[in-house]
């Protein structure tokens, strides 16, 4: 396995992705480096989800290049994604994590310990035996996060991880993001929530209509946006 530090920066070079003839990503060039979380923001249809899916290797660019630490052909093994609406396997909470560990080739004799650790990390230890599909929305998101962390990722991609969650559940997810970031995991997440972007973001990337409009450190981005689109978006005006 490669040294995870060598997997960054994640580089998008003029990446274009089309679906049914329409551009979803339209010439995205972006450099994502190690360190604090990178937060993708932008209105619906901006291309945030597609960008994360492309980073995970779930969609292939129509043209352009995605490289990891300079390697185009060998994406990192230690990357994981959490979807906006994660599917819960029809098993118990613990069995969902156990499955992810098995899929990540974690040795059988180490799985139970890791299951307990991961469920404790996301605050679901008490619900280990509950069927995953009977968990609340926030609990399911945390379980999905535990499954993603089961891959021991160096890069963790989160697609709208707190969409439609209440404030308490949102805080729980953000706390986990802070903890894993402190452990050295690079988090790249998308969000609609500008407050969340301010709370979590180290680096902000504003996308609109499949293009990168502006990037910058969260403090600078919110205090002094350089583009008209960024200014409008921060002010809550509609980007059309």
């Amino acid at each position, binding site marked *: 396995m490669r040294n995870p530090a060598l997997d960054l920066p994640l580089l998008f070079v003029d990446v274009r992705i089309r679906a049914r003839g329409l551009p979803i990503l339209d010439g995205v060039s972006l450099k994502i480096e190690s360190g604090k979380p990178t937060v993708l923001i932008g209105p619906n249809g901006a291309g945030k989800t597609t960008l994360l899916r492309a980073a*995970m290797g*779930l969609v292939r660019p129509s043209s352009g290049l995605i490289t990891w630490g300079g390697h185009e052909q060998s994406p990192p093994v230690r990357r*994981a*994604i959490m*979807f906006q609406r*994660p*599917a*819960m*396997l*029809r*098993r*118990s909470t613990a069995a969902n994590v156990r*499955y*992810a560990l098995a*899929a*990540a080739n974690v040795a059988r004799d180490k799985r139970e310990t890791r299951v307990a650790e991961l469920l404790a990390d996301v605050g679901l230890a008490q619900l280990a035996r509950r*069927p*995953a*599909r*009977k968990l609340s929305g926030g609990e399911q998101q945390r379980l999905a996060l535990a*499954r993603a962390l089961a*891959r021991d990722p160096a890069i963790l991609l989160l697609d709208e991880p707190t969409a439609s969650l209440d404030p308490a559940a949102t805080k729980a997810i953000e706390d986990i993001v802070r903890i894993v970031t402190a452990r050295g995991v690079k988090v790249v997440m998308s969000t609609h929530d500008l407050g969340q972007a301010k709370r979590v973001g180290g680096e902000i990337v504003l996308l609109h209509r499949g293009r990168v409009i502006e990037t910058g450190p969260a403090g600078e981005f919110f205090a002094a946006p350089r583009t008209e689109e960024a200014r409008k978006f921060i002010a809550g005006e509609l980007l059309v």
Partner: protein
Amino acid sequence: MPDNGNVSALHLVLSGDPVLLAIVWLSLTVSLSAVAVSALIAVPIGALIALTRFPGREGVIVFLNAMMGLPPVVVGLAVYLLLSRSGPLGAWGLLFTPTAMIIAQTVLVSPIIAALARQTIEDLWTEYHDELAAMNVGPLRRIVTLIWDARFSLITALLAGFGRAAAEVGAIIIVGGNIDGFTRTMTTAIALETSKGDLPLAIGLGLVLISIVIVINAAAWGARRLGEHYAG
């Protein structure tokens, strides 16, 4: 009130008539064996069709769905020709044995289980696709995962298969021959006894057949609900 067979039938059932019990036992053995064999063959086939894309796939699905309505007598005839002394498998000497009946019912039931399993697993695959792809789960493990996670829904497919097997008479009467004490099942016995005018046995067997179908469906339903409660 004259006995039209109902009272005598009830007496046969309640007294545990050995002839009736032997017929019931053979019927269950044949139908459950056929469903078990079909499940082993048809569920993986259904899963494979659900997960793979190949030229002509739509045609295969239409064909599979159409085969759910296979006429039992046609299946009986085909298996008869296969197992008859001059047929390609005649040397096995299986014609007019319970094994021949199991083969015929397996042919009859497999398309039902495969078609229903395909639909069930495809629906689940739509839901799981991204997660399993993100976890880098290989093709074989995907199939096993989907079959395991769809297991409670697949019970419905197996029940549909059992219903078909337990109720059919056309195929097994052709390949089994309805031999007394050897290949006589509930449905073939009902047909025979009715034609002979022995209504008590026919009605008794009918009652048992309906009861068994209800009990097995209820047990499977209970198992499904219990499983869903504990596993999700």
